């Protein structure tokens, strides 16, 4: 499954470690939410970056106290019909001011890229190679956005206001 990061296909430096597997001595790892809660001290004692895979039905408030120690959070789309992780992503970025890597995992297709970017995701475990290759092109599909989100893109309403004011200056 290709990883898209920084707008292009990239190597995944993170290794997913199963709950019953021993922790590797070094290197970047992704662990489950349960393991993060249980083995927090051991996980923080390691060298290498720490990330967590956070299920889409688990409260964000619970994740909040770990944020300062996390280099990556992978949110989950068990099916692309299940949109809970969009809300989780926005909360992480916009309420908890999380600035680390925010990864979309699970059923990720090109048709969700724009929504995901707008919600604050910046890396993507893409299901299909062709979709990963089409990333740069697909995210340019839309130039108009009606809603304000934490990604800072200007909304249609505000663009109209700017146009209005600039026209006002000219006359």
């Amino acid at each position, binding site marked *: 499954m290709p990883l898209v990061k920084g707008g292009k296909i990239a190597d995944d430096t993170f290794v997913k470690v199963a709950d019953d597997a021993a922790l590797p001595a070094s290197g970047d790892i992704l662990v489950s939410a349960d393991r993060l809660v249980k083995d927090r001290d051991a996980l923080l004692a390691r060298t290498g970056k720490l990330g967590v895979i956070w299920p889409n039905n688990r409260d964000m408030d619970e994740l909040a106290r770990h944020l300062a120690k996390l280099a990556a959070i992978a949110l989950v789309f068990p099916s692309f019909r299940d*949109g809970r992780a969009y809300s989780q992503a926005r909360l992480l970025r916009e309420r908890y001011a999380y600035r680390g890597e925010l990864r979309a995992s699970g059923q990720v297709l090109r048709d969700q890229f724009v929504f995901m970017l707008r919600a604050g995701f910046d890396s993507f475990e893409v299901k299909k190679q062709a979709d990963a290759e089409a990333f740069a092109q697909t995210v340019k599909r*839309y130039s108009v956005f*009606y809603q304000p989100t934490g990604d800072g893109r200007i909304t*249609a309403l505000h663009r109209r206001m700017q146009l209005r004011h600039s026209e006002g200056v000219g006359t």
Partner: protein
Amino acid sequence: MYAYDEIDRTLVNERVSEFRDQVKRRLSGELTEDEFKMLRLQNGVYLQLHAYMFRVAIPYGTLSSEQLRRFAHIARKYDRGYGHFTTRQNIQFNWIKLSDLPDALADLAEVGIHAMQTSGNNMRNVTSDQWAGVAPGEIEDPRIWSELIRQHTTLHPEFSFLPRKFKIAITASDHDRAAIKIHDIGLRLIKNEKGETGFEVLVGGGLGRTPFIGKTIKHFVHGRDILSYIEAILRVYNQYGRRDNIYKARIKILVHELGIEKFSREVEEEWQHIRNSSLQIDDEVIEDIRSRFTYPAYEKLPHMPDELRQAAADPAFEAWRKNSVAPHKVQGYSIVTISLKPVGGPPGDATAEQMDALADLAEKYSFGEIRVGHEQNLALPHVAKRDLPALWRALDKLGLATPNVNLITDIIACPGLDYCSLANARSIPIAQELTRRFANHELANLIGRLHINISGCINACGHHHVGHIGILGVEKNGEEVYQITIGGRADESAALGNLIGPGVKFEEVADVVEDVVEAYLALRERPEELFIDTVKRLGVEPFKERVYATR
């Protein structure tokens, strides 16, 4: 009318090219049908019994002549020469080919029409009063706010994959023509003591398998906060709405399971985080949207022109005028409802020829504007009273002057088993039979206002729960069986109907309805007492006794 600007047009065009790519990937096999399903649904494309069905949005029910003509074009070029207006201010085409869909969408985009928000588990087409902006006594035009919310809910990055579909309706009149109490969110536009615009917000209404009347979650949300308040409701729903069972996934179930108090506390807490954000709407933004709605330059006309006085001698004209013509806020003008319920016809259908002709008539008599209501009828919102006789003659020639608006043959029905893959029973043939039974205008008039709603399955697209008489078709041991309720209503006093007895067979439905009506005529206190009021006064029992006495 709201005029799209370059920004709106760009988005619609970008959407069309995205869909073109999706269809291409489906046709090449790159997308599985399961993957494609959600994508096509988000563009209004359902797979029905015989073919793909294409549902197109008519936001808050406002159309221009040019747009209506384009529907005629779609019906002619890509379909079988007609379209079907739905209960949620949409139009459906039932026979379209998948490979034609991108072109059909592109043709619609040229006139600012699209199919976003017409299906899928997202925020659906915002609906409103079909008399918005012209109804006497209206607080203000609810379409300004409808448009604001339409924009905000279009391709929303957080709420396009909700547990289930989500519908919002807005009214600004005392008499609710938008059925806000049976919507996921209902907004009643009101003013506070300072004269500022805001909304009473209702939540958790809906029909289907488990019907609920919406409950007030907040008595007043200021207009500037309405987007953040809606966003807070949606965020709570997106996270906690059930996804394990499609029949329990609507917000009404979450509200019911948590209780309105707990649900509203959750929303309130979320809202406090986001209300002072960029979601706050300043007056300038509202004014900008308002400035892109144009209103006709009305003439100063007499209340009772000679043309109308003369036509009053014609009983056929008078019969039509009395139930199709409603008062307008401007003197000398009327709102004309166009019945799409001819005797023996499927409710809500219009042919390409009728749509073209109606577009011409709207240009001639209604400043080029047409409205679509949830009762599956159309309306011309600005007709000078002096033009009523000429308009009536023209409509009559087109088969569009059936004088039955709000009468017993003005039936709301879903497509039913004839088209729909979800249906268990036929709806349209029941409606057709009832229009024949009550074809006599004198009789229909004697009965007075009476709404019949028919659904061909428990999903309740025909809103049977809120029909004065509701008919629900189900399947029992391989046969169509119809359950009949009375006393429902969808307006400001919204209520769910009550069953009057055991289900009946297809062949018996029209007889039972006749018996119910006969019982009403015998039971009513005076001719002015409407069916719904008699049922309210007496309850179901006396009807049950009379209808089932001989069965």
